[in-house]
């Protein structure tokens, strides 16, 4: 299903956290470690461009199949661009430091923590968010439908990230075992503890009914 060349390329392009930090530091936009902790909170920048030395640049990014033109600061994270400049608030910020997966999006088909991805690094690449999963007539993606059928979400805050991670998994491995799914999903936290429901949903979406667990 997936093209191995594209996969390898995407893997190569994926920014490691270390590289991300290096780039942020190199941009000169971060004055102290404290503001790195709150790094990427600089979107919704003022008309004056309040941060000294940081200049917005107009770039194009492909989001959910649409080319979007957007002014982006050097240190701006993809999560902030999506949420505060493109109105795509389905991507959630929970830890803002690559620990929890609430901000998971796909970049060229690979799941990525958008809280720790610089928007400038995704120019000319394909970004897929939770908002891009519905069909042309608004129908739910089969994974979304499976999440509904298995009563996956509880509070729902981690759910968009879980759905995106599950879609990416099934694109790569359409018939995962429950253990494979558990491993693939392990970058996404759910404090409600709905893991078993989410795994049931993935098994349902994959047609693996033998590994859907209910009852006693």
């Amino acid at each position, binding site marked *: 299903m997936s093209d191995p060349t594209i996969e390898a390329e995407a893997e190569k392009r994926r920014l490691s956290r270390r590289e991300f930090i290096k780039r942020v530091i190199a941009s000169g936009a971060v004055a102290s470690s404290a503001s790195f902790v709150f790094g990427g909170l600089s979107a919704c920048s003022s008309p*004056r461009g309040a941060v000294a030395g940081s200049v917005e640049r107009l770039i194009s990014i492909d989001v959910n199949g649409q080319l979007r033109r957007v002014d982006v600061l050097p240190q701006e994270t993809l999560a902030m661009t999506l949420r505060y400049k493109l109105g795509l608030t389905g991507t959630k910020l929970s830890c803002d430091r690559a620990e929890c997966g609430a901000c998971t999006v796909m970049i060229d088909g690979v799941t990525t923590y958008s809280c720790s991805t610089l928007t400038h690094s995704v120019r000319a690449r394909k970004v897929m968010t939770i908002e891009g999963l519905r069909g042309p007539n608004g129908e739910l993606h089969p994974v979304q439908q499976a999440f509904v059928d298995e009563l996956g979400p509880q509070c729902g805050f981690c759910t968009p990230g879980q759905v995106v991670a599950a879609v990416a998994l099934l694109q790569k491995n359409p018939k995962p075992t429950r253990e494979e799914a558990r491993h693939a999903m392990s970058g996404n936290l759910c404090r409600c503890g709905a893991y078993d429901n989410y795994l049931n949903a993935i098994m349902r979406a994959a047609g693996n009914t033998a590994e859907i667990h209910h009852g006693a």
Partner: protein
Amino acid sequence: MAHKLLGKDFLPPDVIAKVTGEAKYAEDFRAEGMVFARILSSPYPHARVKSIDATEALAMPGVVGVLLPEDVTNPAPPEIPLLTMEPGYVGAPILLVAAEDETTAQDAIEKIRIDYEPLPFTVDPLASLHPDAPDARTDGNIGAGGSANVALGKLKWKREDFDSAGERMPMGEPAPKQDWTFGDVEAGFAKAKLIIDEPFVHASNSHHSMEPRTAMAYWQNGKCILHLSSQSQSFITPALAGMIGIPATDLVVVAEYCGGGFGSKGGAYPLQALPALLSKKINRPVMMRVSRAEEYYNGSARLGFQGQVKLGFAEDGKLLAADLYIVQENGACNSFWDFRNAPDGLSVLYQPEAMRWRGVPVFANSPIRSAQRGPGYNQMVHIMEPLMDRAARELKIDRLAIRLRNVGGIAAPIGPQRTPATSCYMKDALEKGAQLFGWDERMKRNGQRNGSKVTAVAVGQAFHPAGFNGFDGLLRILPDGKVHIHTGVGNLGTFSHSSTSRIAAEVLKLNWDDVVIERGDTRKNLPWNIGQFGSNTNFTMARTNYVAAMDALTKLREIAAKEFGATPDDYDIDGKRVFRKGLPGIGMAYSDAARRAIALGGKYDGHELPKDINPMTQVSATAIAGTGLVGVAKDNLAVNGAPSAFAAAFIEIELDLETGKHVIIDYLGVADCGTVIHPSGLETQVKSGAVQGFGVASLERIVYDPQNGLPASVGFYQARPPTYGDVAQRFRTSAVDKPDPSSPLGTKGIGEPLLGCAGSALLCAISEAIGGHVFNRTPIVPDMILNHLAKQPQAHGRLQVNCQ
């Protein structure tokens, strides 16, 4: 009685938005002219702020304003201040800065000059009771609100209490009125065959809500519109309005979705009020985003325990006497009264013939605390269940049998007042679980070795109160035939805003498609309802929805009788029509009855209201008066005893003796939640409550540097909520499904004990796997297991807290 809706699954109305990303949480809202606020918080565990100079910050381009301690009215100490000049923990908010963008706000924080005077601090409550030790607060070291009601004060134990303690916890005098006794405790110990007397520690652990407590506020026409993260809806409004300094009717609370609370967002909290106050001051909408680290500072944690428990058992395993002492870690401010709940839990689950309890709620310079799923009750079972296992081993009794020997009856008495449970089916839960799990068969595997791995099987129990009463119900039947059920309970993610609304639908025999749930926003005219916490929603809201529906039913019958003659009692309903019994042709559709109600006015369409309903319900019902047939009533139904929920857990683990790590092979949770209201919702809670129990038992804790009072657990990786990799490979769920007689349709709450039974079962299984050693401590982490197996000393002191 066969139900139309109860016990059946349905599509909760908020699920689709959660899987599409359309569900809007506080940080997803925008307002024209919105600015960003950042919090300047304390870098010290305890300090006095001697001066604040914001001149340079305010002169920065883009900075709009500041909110200082002098701008807010704080509640009387030791309640949590909004902003403080004497921060009592790292991360305590001192002031807010608003700017056009968030980076500027953060940069402005760096430009604010604050002169701090560091003060003595403590991160060990027990140690701080020593006469030579520092107090966490300058105005006292003990206090607690709620049912404990311990005034802020100073309590120091005697030096000899510490010097003579030996292996036991030092035990000086308890806090005022924080002790009780029933039965003859000393006589119980005297006739006991086995005495267990152990000090214990139950760690604090954060709530780790995925959604930080971000809030956005603006003012419009004198009203404050507040988008926030709350488990509760109606319940928080009066208190939050009080913090902001406005009448409740001038506060609009939007809380349609809440990204997790687990007790930490049950009541109104200061961080909800701060953006509202700043917005008022600068006359701009304010978005105050809360970072993950700030969430760990201010987002609450379970209250930790240091304690001593002495148990006396008869030869057959009967618990004759219990003596319990708990030192509770409050955090720096008033929080909850877990230490007072815990002994009630012990008393109802194990039914000792005699019992004494003593407690002290002590302040420490550590994060804000609040109730966390099963406050006190779950800490108690995490300590007690492994000790019940130890008693069983020493008395050579089966571990399930010792629980059945001590389990309470259907009206199991609770606490010193011996209040009967409205229903207790713990025995049924244990027996059903044992049968489904195959206890006897599995016990044959117990202790089996496979290389370095050992299999262990265990059982756990838990209890929590499960309901309140006295709140209001509100619904209306509209001329289009739809029935709008107004619910102010909140959205914690359990779907119980809808499952309890189905009680009203059941009474009116409605098709679920004909029901519209009105919730999530004060402007939707919501009644006065309980907050969504404490396993209370089901029982409490079943009753409010029941009485509102019964009021609507009475009005339907009266309207039919006015229209067609005979008496109201001669009429029945079928979900669409009210009709004459035996003469179904005589009657009218609900939609026509709604039109008649509007024409009749008075009580029928909400223009006349019951006198005993809450002012909030009065306002809401008045706002919808004239739109249809209004059903509105206060829950005045009788309650015979204390509504109670119970749960049993059965677990099989494999523990690697070389690494100290365990894998949960199989887990079964059995709920005593009365009549099952929503089967798939219940299954979800049984499983996910267990996940949280596994976390408390084996992963989660708060870590402090005792030398500097600095927190080390301010991220998910450090504070360690469970991941996909930490949970059971196989979850099984079941329920007793016997009705509670004090609930109109037999339903009652269940959320909290589902954590405690699982945490207990896992703690018991770990002990079982290592030959029965009981750590008397949570969490049990691998290095503790390895140290024990290698006969090495543990890294922590026996009663040390906030460590590991």
